[in-house]
């Protein structure tokens, strides 16, 4: 029998959402300060309003003070799913008021795209956007990539943390407690922040000849969007703006670091490093990257768009890396990407669909699931070919020796199939609006796998239904479905329960 949630359930959920709202309100002080320092008074007002809304919701939520503040599994998942809806809604306030969007829904689309680290955008005239608003867009990607919940967990330790942690699509507890794991993740991010901003800033200043302050600005924005595999950029031509192989190389390093699981970061930092390459996930991502790379390069060679191997390799490599890590940066315009038909299109689309590593900032099906699926299929074939009583090994290496159990296979298959269904949903709706299959599928995969590469379908003139579907895809894809289904179940129980 379905049990209808009672007032206490809502109080628990409201209490935790209140706490998270307070954390985001504190984070909102950064763009507010930026706007003040840059004397951008129009965005300053909208940031003040946004901070006020977050703070008010925060204190109201915390003020609910439930009798028991322990968070069970279902409550935790609902908190995560709602938080990932609430933050974009309020975070869109400065974007709506900026005048850079045709309709408020477009601003919400960008906020959702930012938070889910997708990178698709409906923003008009980004080249004249206030620097504080640019900071907010990129900072949203940082918040989303790191995990808003993770930020809250770092500050508010307590019971129920593990539920929230898992709800945000992380299943790897690197250190004994969730709080210490969250702090480790922040430590990794800060080290990369220092490396990323310094390197990109120096390249901008010394090689590209930008002013020092602008070099640091570009470095910071590209770090946020690169390390958190987001894909927003401060200029409309994305990474193509910089026209620099060195800049692209540093950006690529950040994208790779962002797509690596934090468990892998831990192994690289603390050792043993040899085990990193024994991991099923590492081997899978290296193989799929090689495969999609070859596919794309062969396809690009067939198009005849590039006259020399160096150009073809540089552009192909960057685009595949951007797709596979789920970043969405590009060095070629959308109009040109749309011409990459055949194998090149296939290579990029497959790379996007597969995604990065689990417990990273990347989206998509994720390498571990791909690796486990392949292993399960191989085992099944072996089982058929070998004598009836022969035992097929189920062991695999992933941060230690593990076994492929039927329940693990089931869970992997279900999530993978849900991703495929999500990819097809957006593609189908796109086609219903008369968009060709290739473009519909590309954009749908890009939204669902939180990549952000576009062949031009994502545009302010796009149908509202398609826009809503892409937003749903970004949200569900980022949370890997579990929290979304929990929310749906909670609502259903509220309506139909007894």
């Amino acid at each position, binding site marked *: 029998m379905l049990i209808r949630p009672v007032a206490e359930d809502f109080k628990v959920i409201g209490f935790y959402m209140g706490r998270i709202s307070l954390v985001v309100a504190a984070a909102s002080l950064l763009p507010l300060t930026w706007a003040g320092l840059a004397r*951008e*008074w*129009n965005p*300053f*007002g*909208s940031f*003040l*309003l*946004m*901070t*006020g*809304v977050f*703070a*008010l919701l*925060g*204190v109201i939520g*915390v*003020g609910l003070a439930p009798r028991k503040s322990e968070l069970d599994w279902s409550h935790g998942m609902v908190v995560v799913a709602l938080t990932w809806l609430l933050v974009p809604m309020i975070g869109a306030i400065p974007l709506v*008021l900026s*005048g*850079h*969007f*045709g309709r408020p829904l*477009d601003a919400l689309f960008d906020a959702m795209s930012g938070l889910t680290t997708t990178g698709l955008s409906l*923003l*008009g*005239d*980004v*080249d*004249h*956007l*206030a*620097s504080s608003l640019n900071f907010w867009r990129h900072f949203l990607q940082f918040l989303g990539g790191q995990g808003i919940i993770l930020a809250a967990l770092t500050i508010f330790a307590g019971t129920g943390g593990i539920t929230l942690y898992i709800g945000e699509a992380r299943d790897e507890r690197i250190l004994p407690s969730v709080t210490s794991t969250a702090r480790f993740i922040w430590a990794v991010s800060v080290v990369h922040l220092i490396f990323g901003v310094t390197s990109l800033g120096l390249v901008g200043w010394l090689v*590209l*000849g*930008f002013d020092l302050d*602008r070099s640091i600005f570009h470095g910071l924005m590209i770090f946020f969007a690169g390390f958190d595999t987001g894909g927003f950029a401060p*200029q*409309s*031509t994305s990474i*193509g*703006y910089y*026209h620099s*192989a060195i800049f692209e190389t540093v950006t690529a390093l950040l994208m790779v670091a962002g797509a690596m699981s934090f468990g892998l970061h831990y192994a690289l930092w603390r050792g043993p490093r040899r085990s990193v390459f024994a991991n099923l996930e590492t081997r899978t991502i290296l193989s799929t990257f090689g495969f999609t790379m070859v596919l794309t390069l062969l396809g690009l060679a067939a198009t005849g*768009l*590039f*006259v*020399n191997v*160096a*150009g*073809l390799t*540089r*552009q192909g490599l960057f685009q595949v890396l951007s797709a596979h890590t789920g970043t969405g940066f590009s060095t*070629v*315009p959308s*109009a*040109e990407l749309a011409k990459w038909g055949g194998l090149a299109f296939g290579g990029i689309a497959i790379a996007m669909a597969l995604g990065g590593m689990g417990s990273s900032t990347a989206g998509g099906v994720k390498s571990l699931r791909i690796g486990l699926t392949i292993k399960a299929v191989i085992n099944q074939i072996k089982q058929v070919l070998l004598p009836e009583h022969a035992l097929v090994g189920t062991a695999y290496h992933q941060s230690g020796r593990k076994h492929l159990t039927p329940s693990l296979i089931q869970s992997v298959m279900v999530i993978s199939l849900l991703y495929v269904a999500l990819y097809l949903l957006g593609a189908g709706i796109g086609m219903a609006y008369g968009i060709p299959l290739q473009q519909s599928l590309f954009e749908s995969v890009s939204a669902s796998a939180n990549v952000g590469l576009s062949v031009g379908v994502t*545009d*302010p*003139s796009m149908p509202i239904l398609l826009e809503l579907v892409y937003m749903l895809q970004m949200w569900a894809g980022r949370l890997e479905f579990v929290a979304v289904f929990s929310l749906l179940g909670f609502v259903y129980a509220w309506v139909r329960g007894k």
Partner: protein
Amino acid sequence: MRRLVPVSLLATLFLLIPDPAYAALEVSVLELLELGAELAGEEVTVEGELVGDYGFRDNGWMWTQLNGDAYVRRPLREGSEAVGANLGIAIRVPVELTEVLDPPGRYRNRGPVVRVTGIWKYHDTARPGESYLEVQSLSVTEPGRQLNEEVNWIAVLLGALLLVGAGVIALLTRPKE
């Protein structure tokens, strides 16, 4: 008389050879983006606003972005509506041509609108895979100008009120020892 004939011929020839600016194909930024391959190696003339940064590199070139979209003539800060993404291409300009340029377009600043003629380098082999316009001549059509920024006082007031309200609620609902 003997001298006059070749001089006259040379003068006629000189008059017949067109000025590079006039011989170049007149294109828009959109055409360069959509027909990039077809226009590869062509001498083209394009007009647009310079935005972003002026990157002065060691080799005597300045790199920047030239936008040819609706925002060039109707900036958002002057009340026009958002009509989609920017349309921009990279250009590289000999440093000696850049002295006449106002600061590039950014927030509260409409960059100079220029008319440039140069060679469209599509997937240039010298700079693996990059596409850009190598500028040979440049003229400023409209100088850069400051754009107004209006403070949204309603947002400021509302935000301040909400923050005060949040503070009051926090005080009233704080747990008692």
